[in-house]
């Protein structure tokens, strides 16, 4: 049943593959603009590195956030929230596959398409624009593994937010809070190293850094992310977070389901 759901959703994703071409083209344009912005900052500062990032690493850090956002993106919370508001969730619950599994199938099925039609072309073009001197096959594999775990963490956090919609009906505010935390504390708009030291210490104990900052740093092979021990340590910590949030989701789901009363229909 789960694999059937994956195949159905994969077909849906493939149907809209033209949109990937647009997405890739615009990402390239924005990447070029980012190069210009950072080139100006680096040359004005007359410095080889800024907060430990060389020019090439900084540009690729920002560039890698484009791929990561596509690789981890999924929105089960919107789907659940809309289902609650419209009343369609009641019908959804009658189906022989659980909502968590269905949403997971939906989310994961889009990834092979995203990987081949969006990630790879963007990546190849970016390499052509600025060759990444830090990249090797091992670094790339490490990046893919960490990004896969980030996707699972992202999915579960979103599902958790979607479950909150049983009480609040609309999950939009919670989604927005999550987005803010991810962008700000996850290192999506600037590496966390730019923040004051005290803030960095707080961010270190939160899971948000695993969405952008950690995968990006593995990707650019930054100092402190090069050895195998740090890689294994990161995987273990991410797995702990995934299990914790999965348990939380299961608990909250059971609790909310008992209180669920369809609003529409």
């Amino acid at each position, binding site marked *: 049943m789960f694999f059937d759901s994956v195949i159905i959703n994969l077909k849906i994703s493939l149907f*809209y593959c*033209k*949109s990937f071409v*647009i*997405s890739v083209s*615009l*990402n390239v*344009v*924005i990447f*070029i*603009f980012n190069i*210009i*912005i950072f080139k*100006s*900052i680096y040359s*004005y*500062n007359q*410095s080889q590195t*800024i*907060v430990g990032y060389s020019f090439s690493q900084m540009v690729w850090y920002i560039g890698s956030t484009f791929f990561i956002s*596509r690789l981890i*993106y999924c929105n089960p919370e919107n789907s659940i929230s809309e289902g609650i508001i419209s009343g369609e969730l009641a019908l959804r619950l009658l189906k022989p596959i659980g909502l968590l599994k269905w949403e997971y199938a939906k989310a994961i099925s889009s990834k092979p398409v995203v990987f081949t039609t969006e990630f790879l072309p963007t990546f190849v073009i970016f390499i052509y624009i600025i060759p990444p001197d830090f990249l090797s096959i091992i670094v790339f594999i490490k990046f893919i593994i960490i990004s896969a775990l980030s996707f699972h963490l992202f999915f579960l956090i979103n599902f958790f937010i979607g479950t909150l919609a049983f009480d*609040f*009906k*609309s999950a*939009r*505010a*919670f989604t*927005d*809070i999550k*987005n*803010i935390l991810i*962008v*700000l504390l996850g290192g999506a*708009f*600037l590496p966390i190293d*730019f*923040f*004051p030291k005290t803030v960095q210490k707080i961010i270190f104990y939160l899971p948000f850094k695993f969405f952008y900052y950690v995968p990006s740093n593995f990707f650019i092979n930054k100092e402190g992310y090069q050895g195998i021990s740090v890689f294994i340590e990161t995987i273990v910590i991410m797995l702990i977070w995934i299990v914790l949030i999965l348990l939380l989701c299961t608990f909250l789901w059971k609790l909310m389901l008992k209180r669920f009363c369809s609003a529409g229909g």
Partner: protein
Amino acid sequence: MKYIIKYLSLYIEYSKIIFARGTEFKTDFVLGICINLISTLFTPLFQFLIYHNTRGYPGWTFDEIILFQSILLFWNGIILTLFGSIRYRITPMIIYGHFELFLLKPYPALLLIFAGGFNYYSIGTILAGIILSIYALIKLNLIIGFIQILLFWTFFFIGILFYLSIMIFFLCISFILIYIFNLFEIKDRLISLAHFPAEIYSGLFKTIYLIFFPLAIWTYYPSQTFLGKLNIISIYACISSILMFILSLIAWNFTIKKYTGAGG
């Protein structure tokens, strides 16, 4: 004039409905306004972090960049309040085929799309922009005269036309391709290039930024007006903004004629 009044009354009616619907989910409503305000403070924070860790941008002191950012906040607040809901409404309408109903109504479809753009979440951002602008003007000891205010609002209104033209082009793309999951995210990334002053760019990109795709009209030229550094090039930016708007309307008319509907 009659057309504008008709549009405004339609816009007000739509806004009342959107507001009433929003206040149905009270937690969401209050949190949404606060969150939106916080998220719009990202760009000033970005600039703060850049200036905190580097020498910043050529030709811009920290206080000047705060003025630039405050105008950006004000601009973003206005634009998102006026048209922020479009992204949430239109894509599902195109995918599920509800958009066809728009074509049956006694108003032009484009008018209906923009009339339903009101988004109360961004009102806080406008206030933040005004407060920060006043702070920056005081900090920089700037005295603003009538001409500067007139120029500011001229850029502002022509900037709205330019913004509308970008929206229309993106709507055309979504009508042709039916579904682009991150279309509006791409648009956001594209217009976020206006979050930086022209001195950051060089060569062809600077010319594009200043004249041909004049992102400078939203924040760069208005801040240059207040700082007394406005260049004559800004006239070309106004002309190309108006041309872009006309082109976008032509593209829209062409697209809507070709539109066949995706759902049903």
